[in-house]
């Protein structure tokens, strides 16, 4: 269970949000909604542990994530605004190396399959710099097909994707939830994701 207790966050001397509480259980999906600049991305970064909250804490399995270093991080995948891709490497190299950095050794084989599933088979060996914005986003999202993490934290995963890719991704998230995973995501688009329980959190 991923839970947040009384989170507050400031940017500069401006208070973005305060008193954020939620509990996310296996199979549940949390939408974080709000206007631009309301602190959605900051909240997601706090949930990952990249940023420390001004007050409050995030707990994973009942324990503060700042106290457990590896346990939470090996259960977590975060895809932010940045694609975390190296322009000079091919899509396949990018994925297989980032798998190894995360400690998975069978990355290369599974990466090719994941790229194929996303319709990127022909681009797998091309340097990422030559791909379009949408293709780059798809390569970054291919990590979701490789990941064994239980918590997915996705910042605007549907941006720059075409309709077919959106459907693919939505069904992948649905699959993940059905298998007992959990997901937190922000989005501007109306996307239908099959989930048992959908929670919404609106930042003002």
């Amino acid at each position, binding site marked *: 269970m991923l839970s947040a207790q009384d989170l507050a966050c400031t940017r500069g001397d401006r208070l973005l949000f305060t008193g954020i509480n939620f509990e996310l259980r296996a199979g549940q999906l949390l939408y974080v909604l709000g206007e631009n600049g309301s602190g959605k991305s900051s909240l997601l970064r706090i949930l990952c542990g990249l940023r420390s909250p001004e007050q409050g804490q995030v707990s994973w399995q009942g324990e503060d994530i700042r106290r457990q270093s590896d346990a939470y991080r090996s259960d977590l995948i975060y895809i932010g605004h*940045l694609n975390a891709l190296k322009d000079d490497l091919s899509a396949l190299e990018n994925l297989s190396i980032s798998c190894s950095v995360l400690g998975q050794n069978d990355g290369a084989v599974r990466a090719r399959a994941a790229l194929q599933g996303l319709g990127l088979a022909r681009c797998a060996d091309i340097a990422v710099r030559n791909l379009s914005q949408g293709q780059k986003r798809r390569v970054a999202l291919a990590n979701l097909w490789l990941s064994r993490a239980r918590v997915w934290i996705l910042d605007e995963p549907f941006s720059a994707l075409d309709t077919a890719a959106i459907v693919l991704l939505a069904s992948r998230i649905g699959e993940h939830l059905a298998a007992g995973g959990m997901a937190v995501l922000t989005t501007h688009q109306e996307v239908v994701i099959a989930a048992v329980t959908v929670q919404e959190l609106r930042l003002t």
Partner: protein
Amino acid sequence: MNGAWIAVVRRDMLLALRRRSDVATTLFFFVIVASLFPLGVSPEPALLRTLAPGVLWVAALLACMLSLTRLFAVDYADGTLEQMVLAPQSLTLLVLGKVFAHWLVSGLPVVLLAPVLGLQYAMPNDALLVLVWSLLLGTPALSLIGAIGAALTLGVRGSGLLVALLVLPLYVPVLIFGSGAVAASQSGLDAGAYLSLLGACSLLALALTPWATAAALRIAVE
């Protein structure tokens, strides 16, 4: 554990291989700085020989520092750094991989090229050998210490100059022992003590700096 470390080194080496010009820039900088001194001072061999240890070491130091700004900046800009911070592997270990790769592409070439420049400075053969040894023992400390500065200045305006300001004072001991070793051997003294101290500097840096760099990176991605 080792898998992740190797993956980080491999990624950076692959990137360096695809961007060979970056590596070459550092090297040429080293060569040019070292070649300017005789033009500015005098071509007289005896004078050059006394200048050589200091000039070559300072040039190596500047070349290493020049390449530091790139150490984490690209990872920071493209989001790879966030993913490294979030990886279940210890960030200290991944940092060590990055620094090792940096040393391989910026420190090691300087070590290998230094004796050629030493010839320009009319250095005797045994001093050349000590020069190579001193750089081999000292440049890892330069990369390790410099990584802290590179991590602290991520995303900061004018970070290139700021890195110099933060890191150069910390390089003083390495410079003193490094050029001291070469100078000692040129004047017929034993360079062993200097080389041991250089090695000690590198070991100390190896033990302490990756931790500090990792902390600085966590502060930077926040």
